């Protein structure tokens, strides 16, 4: 029994050293080959972090495309979904409110909260739907907006990264 315990403590020590220190260190080292990604795909503007390409942030203004609803208010240090039953009243009420604000015929992703609350994408349909509002707010032609959307659309999944799209819009202006 005693030798079993000694053996066990030894095994624990060795596995911990290898799995936690060596393995993590090795993966960390590889991370330097893709430093930008390993650090969280951060986007800098004027030397300041404006966000992560992978993390949704709350755009409220009319001039910007809005991300999907977030159950955690885009809190990137405490992410989460709504965890509501798809039959729940809350989902319906939220959807009715968004429809009241945006009009009818909305794409479904605009009225449903994402799993992480940080989904950085909206569907192409959603982007096109919002294009009119953004064009109006920016006093520009809707087709110009659509052109920018097209540039930032993932053609296979038909989705658009909101932060990149909004930054591109600002650049175009």
């Amino acid at each position, binding site marked *: 029994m005693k030798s079993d315990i000694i053996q066990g403590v030894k095994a624990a020590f060795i*596995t911990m050293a290898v799995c936690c220190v060596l393995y993590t260190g090795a993966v960390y080292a590889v*991370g330097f080959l893709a430093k930008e990604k390993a650090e969280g795909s951060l986007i800098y503007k004027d030397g300041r972090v404006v966000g992560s390409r992978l993390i949704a942030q709350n755009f409220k203004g009319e001039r910007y495309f809005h991300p999907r609803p977030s159950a955690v208010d885009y809190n990137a240090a405490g992410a*989460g*979904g709504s965890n509501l*039953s798809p039959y729940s009243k809350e989902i319906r009420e939220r959807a009715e409110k968004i429809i009241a604000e945006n009009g*009818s015929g909305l794409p479904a992703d605009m009225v449903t909260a994402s799993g992480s609350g940080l989904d950085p994408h909206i*569907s192409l349909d959603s982007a096109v739907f919002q294009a009119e509002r953004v064009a109006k707010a920016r006093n520009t032609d809707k087709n110009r907006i659509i052109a920018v959307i097209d540039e930032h659309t993932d053609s296979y999944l038909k989705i658009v990264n909101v932060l990149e799209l909004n930054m591109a819009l600002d650049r175009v202006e």
Partner: protein
Amino acid sequence: MVFVTLIIGISAVLSWFLGRYMTYIMDSSEQGTWQSYLKQFAVFNVIMFAVSFAVLAFQQYLPLNPDGKGALTADLIFNTAASFTTNTNLQHYSGEVSMSYFSQLFALMWLQFVSAATGIAVLTAIARGLGGKGFGNFYKDMMRATFYILLPVSFVVAVLLIFTGVPMTFGGTVEAHTIEGALQNIARGPAAAFIAIKQLGSNGGGFFGPNSAHPFENPNFWSNAVETMSIIIIPMSCVWMFGRLTGKMRHAAVIFGVMLLLLVMKLSFAAYFESAPAGALAGLDVQTSSNLEGKELRFGTSAAPLWAVVTTSTSNGSVNNMHDSLNPLTGLVPLTGMWLNETFGGVGVGMINMLIYILTGVFICGMMVGRTPEYLGRKVETQEMKLVLLALLVHPLCILGGTALFTIMPWGAETVHNTGAHGFTEILYEFTSSSANNGSGFEGLGDNTPAWNIATGIVMLVSRYVPIVLPLMAAGSLAAKRISPDTSGTLHTDTVLFGAVILGSIIFIGALLFMPVAVLGPVSEYMAGALK
């Protein structure tokens, strides 16, 4: 559907080779009885629990804590230590909120390696015993599995994940000044290393709260594909390893086929049910689409049901969408996966669970050929059936007993996030997931309470160790018997018919035990919703 077929198909093909490699690594001629193996197994698991408990309890004094995470409550520490020691990875905390990097790496990730290696080790011992060799030495098996199987494969996956955009940094939370002038705190961390083993070892505990739905854990379509395959590949390989170690490859192929068939059935149901829009949107002026509540857009439409099925089939428990928000009948599919818990199952333990079903099926159907039932040429008698049935009983006891208790007690009923049938399903799911050592959750449940932490902690421990120890004992008892030769009068374990027998046993046992709660939870919610 193409995506689903490719993911499953590629995994199945790769598993053949990995199974071969695993056999090469794990096969040994070390002697040893099942008793000595069991003792070493028990000692090491106690050490695992103790070490992780200590690290979590003192995390505020330990290094690698750039964000200054504070102390955890005792019940949460118990629950988390039990959860990771048992390879469950049920999380009643949110990683980026509560855990220091040291806790994540030295308590949790360490357990993700060694608890997975434990599963592989015990399966190896059982297979060796049934194959007529010695049971071997637990420590040697566990180290072999860690160093030569889990570690190299994890490294490859971790590197792939970094290149898809998973962070690997000790930089701590970064403060972003958004374009609109607001502030956003973005939690980061050494996620890539953690996630690789989380997926491969059927652990499932996420670095961040929303698990693999979080963009940092799963940044795009490709990371999602890699992670999905990582969930299933070692459990698949374990079946081949079992076949090679016992010298019954055709038998292993039949088992593999049955598991695959069940998986495909579940996938078809889930994909079909989830293609309907969320019920709450019925009648609203919204474009029709599949249910998008709780889903991320970047994985594509079939990725969520695929992941939900695969992760609950393998006792992994990571999620890339919120199961609480799955359509009711889709939600039934993950539940079913965890009730059965052996459509490939957890690394090592999935195949062990399958043995429980096989022995039950063999016993009842084996008599119908007019012989004392035999498995791999060895008679299945009272001793084995006692052990097998006890192991089989643990699962319904933990799930139904726990659910029954928490539905009438305020500490259960008041923590649910939804009302009626869905609230019931949240409780049912939590106990199912704990008992299946899965770890996924209907996350709406307010489960970080002393009652939940203690109850699920106990459930995880009981339902991890009983179904490992008892089959090991049964294998020990079987291994001591003489092997009768294979004739046309014996039940063949390598035929389609035998596959049908185990498939039937699994479906029957699962259905008979869990049909009432399935009806009261998901089915009832669906029928009530459909009536509206």
